[in-house]
Every structure is written in structure tokens, then in C-alpha cells.
């Protein structure tokens, strides 16, 4: 049954090794020509690096925004903790596409937010953020923040709070306690959040398509262009295979480090 899921990738694999010709016949003359074309093409490399950069910035922002929130709910809220977490999750019940659209509805030049800020005199002219790198990253943060906060929160909840008391009894100040005790102990949560945000964002297709322009394209859009635009399935396949291999190697590195328990979402 698992084979059924992998059948499409088997066919894409055949295409990537040039083993299917233009008449859709299988030929047994494997070649790496499409891989070498992808790897030697600087344009593809540039888009790949941009995807890494977008996903990296998104992870960083999610961590900077998400850590204080997870910390606050876990450490400072005594009653109604569950209520706070549910209130945090509710916006993520809305489907991914609708969340993206909702963001478009306030980032638009003609949007309520822009009219409000202009009429308050805070800005002179509407913010033109749509179709920029910033828009793509902002919407990615909005869409994937929950993937950072939930593992962080779960991690902070499990953290043995007597250790923090011990640190302060032994004379560590609050900053020192945080840097030397809390932060290192929450590393598993940070790593899990990193993976859960980085993987879907680096392969993002919908967000750059809707709020970005051709200058903000990511790997997902490039793969799409090869398959649907240029109809060059061989290059598209080689690109897909390389990208999947990259993602899988990230996950394998993570599992090696944390152990398989880290994958039990």
C-alpha cells in the first residue's frame, strides 16, 4: 500500500534519469544530463538559495515571536492555561488558503489597515508591501507560527520548574537563569519548531504565487514552472528529486540527533 504513494515518485525518478522519452516510452539508457543541467544552472541555484533564505528568516521570526508567547503562557498564566492555548490555535483552524487570503485582505494597498493608518496620519501613502519579499515572509510567519509555538509550549510545560528555583537559590539572576537553564532546556522544542516551520516554508508554493511576484519565486514555483509552464518534465523531475533529497536529509539529520521520538508529532 505504501508503494502506491511512491509510484508517482518512481515515475518522476525515471524522468529525472532520462529513462522516459518524449513518446512516454521507458528507455534503459539512464543519464545524469538533467541533474547536471540543474546543478550547473546558476538561476536555479539562486532560487534555491532564496528559498533557504526566506524559510530561514521565517523560522527566526517565528522563534522571536513565538518564544515569548509560549514562555508567557507556560510560566506566567496560572489559571485558564488551556483556554489561552485554544485561543492561540483558533486562527489556525481556518484553512491555510483562507488565512493567506485574509492576510492579503489587510496587506492590499486599498485595505482597511492602509486607510486607517493614512487617516490617522501615521503614514503618508499606503504601504506597498504586496508582491515583495517582505510580503512573502510576513504571510509565511502568519501561516506557520503555530508550528513553532506548539512544540515550544509542550517543551516548556514539561520543563522541571524546580531547576529554575534551584538556579535562583544558588544566586543566578533572572537573565542568567534564562540563558543558562531555561534556554538550553528548551532546545528540543526550538529544534522541533525549526523543523516544523522550515520544511513547509522552504517548499512553499501558494504564498509566493499569491503575494509575491516573479522576483520572489521559490523552489516550489520553479518546479511548477518547469512542469506546467515549460512542460520540461525531465528538468522538473530532476529538480523535484534533488529538492526531496534535500528535505529528507534534513529530517534524517534531525532524527539522528534527537531520536525517532522527535518525529511523534
Amino acid at each position, binding site marked *: *500500500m*505504501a508503494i*502506491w504513494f511512491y509510484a508517482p515518485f518512481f515515475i518522476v525518478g525515471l524522468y529525472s534519469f532520462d529513462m522516459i522519452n518524449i513518446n512516454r516510452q521507458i528507455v534503459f539508457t539512464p543519464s545524469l544530463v538533467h541533474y547536471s543541467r540543474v546543478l550547473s544552472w546558476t538561476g536555479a541555484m539562486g532560487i534555491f538559495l532564496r528559498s533557504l533564505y526566506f524559510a530561514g528568516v521565517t523560522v527566526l521570526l517565528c522563534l522571536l515571536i513565538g518564544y515569548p508567547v509560549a514562555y508567557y503562557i507556560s510560566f*506566567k498564566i496560572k489559571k485558564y492555561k488551556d483556554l489561552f492555548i485554544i485561543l492561540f490555535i483558533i486562527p489556525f483552524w481556518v484553512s491555510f*488558503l483562507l488565512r493567506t487570503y485574509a492576510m492579503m485582505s489587510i496587506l492590499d494597498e486599498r485595505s*482597511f489597515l492602509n486607510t486607517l493608518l493614512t487617516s490617522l496620519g501615521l503614514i503618508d501613502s499606503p504601504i506597498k508591501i504586496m508582491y515583495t519579499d517582505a510580503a512573502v515572509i510576513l504571510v509565511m510567519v502568519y501561516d506557520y507560527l503555530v508550528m513553532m509555538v506548539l512544540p515550544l509550549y509542550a517543551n516548556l510545560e514539561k520543563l522541571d520548574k524546580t531547576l529554575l528555583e534551584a538556579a535562583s537559590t544558588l544566586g543566578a539572576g533572572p537573565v542568567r537563569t534564562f540563558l543558562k537553564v531555561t534556554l538550553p532546556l528548551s532546545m528540543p522544542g526550538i529544534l522541533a519548531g525549526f523543523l516544523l516551520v522550515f520544511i513547509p516554508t522552504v*517548499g512553499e508554493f*501558494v504564498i509566493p504565487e499569491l503575494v509575491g511576484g516573479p522576483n520572489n519565486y521559490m523552489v516550489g514555483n520553479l518546479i511548477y514552472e518547469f512542469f506546467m509552464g515549460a512542460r520540461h518534465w525531465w528538468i522538473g523531475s530532476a529538480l523535484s528529486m534533488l529538492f526531496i533529497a534535500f528535505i*529528507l536529509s534534513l529530517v534524517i539529520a534531525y532524527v539522528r540527533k534527537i531520536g525517532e521520538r522527535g518525529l511523534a508529532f
Partner: protein
Amino acid sequence: MKGTTPFLKIFTILVFLFLYSPIIVMVVFSFNESKSIGVFTNFSFRWYEKVINNPEVWKALFNSFWVGAVVTIVSLVLGLMMAMAVTRYSFSGKSILESLILIPVIIPEIAEALSLLIMYIFLNIPLGPVTVIIGHIAFDVSFVTIVMRARMAGYDKSIEEAARTLGANEFQTFFRITLPTLYPAILAAGLLAFTLSFDDLIKTLFTTGPGFKTLPLIVWSSAARGGVSPELNSLSSFALSISFLFAVFRLRAERRLER
């Protein structure tokens, strides 16, 4: 860190504001009388009327529901079987099978969707509802299996043995003991599978044939074509309320599981 508490509180409130305001603005402006998406003039159901009177929307909604239902049922049956196989029996290649189940969750959806499309074209399979359903199932089975496996880990097998000792045959044991005991997990996994299928855009977009549209496809094509509009606001708010309803069901099912 006593001194930082007020800062953390304000920061958290701002983050909640950031999360809620786009959705609230979208819903509020779906009730706007004017065509503007920046100035609220008057309350009106005008755009909802337009959405409700659009037969394409109803057709897409109907498609989303029946595709979701078929996907849920098939994914549950297959996922239950896989979860039982990996939790109850040991066989060679089990750990490989377990990783094979996890991988679909990790692979970028765009690569997955385009690979499916290439396979359909290669095998000359005409695109339509069937290809959409097959694509959804291939992916949802993994999620169902992961949820079921986690729940089955703590499953007490002795009640099945008791049933067998008391003279129940294998089918009776499965339908009267195993299934009812696993019911909360099945419900939670089923609602998850339905939501995943109902909200799916990318796989549906690339594996559908001419004329077969689901609700996310309509939202996508109008958002990609015309950007933000009051009509799309109301369609999205309408779709949002459905997603929401299912999320509430799912939460209640999960709560039940925890007890």
C-alpha cells in the same frame, strides 16, 4: 523574571491581535455594502447574496463534501489496517514501513502533486474526481496511521483475549470489541482526514480534470486572478465557517480521547 512580565503580557496580546485581525477584517468587510475593501460604509448581505446565487459555489461545495467523505472512509479503513499491522505484528521490514508511512507527511506538497500529475499523464489516466480522490487518500492515509498508531500504543489487548475466551470469533471480536474501543481515535483521525481533504488546494489543483472544482479551487482562482474583493471576502468567510465547524468537532473528539 518579574520585571519582564508586563512586557511579555503586552507582547502576547499584540501577537494575538496579529493573529486575529486579518481574519476579523476579512469577515467584517464581507458585510460591507460598498465595493471598497478599505472603508466600511454600511452593513449589507449583498455579497453573500451574490455568493449564494452562484451555482458554481454550490457545486464546488457539494464536490468538496463528497470527495472529503470518500477520502475519509477509505483513509480510515487503510490507515486502521496499517496501524494495526505496525503495532501488533512484527515482521521483516517493519521499521522501513514505518518510515515509509512518515515520509509523505514531510515531502513538499507541490512536488507530490506534480508527481501525481506526471504519473496520471504517463499512465493515460483521465483527470477528474477519481484522480483527485486517489491523490488525497495517498496522503491522508499517513496522517490517519500516525494518529491511530499513537492511540493504539496504549491499547489493552487482554479484553480481546477475554472476548475470544468467551467464545467470540475473530469478526465478532473485531466489530464488537476492537472497533468500539478505538472509536474515539477513529473519530479524531476521521475528522482530521476530512479536514485535510476539504481544505486541500495544491493536490486538487493539479490532479483535477476540466470542470471539476472544489471550494478551495474557487477561492484560489479568484484570489490569483482578481486579488482581494468583497465577494471573495464573503465566499471565504462562508468557507471559514465550515472549516471552523469541523475544527470544533475535532477538538471535541480529541478532548474525548484525552479522558
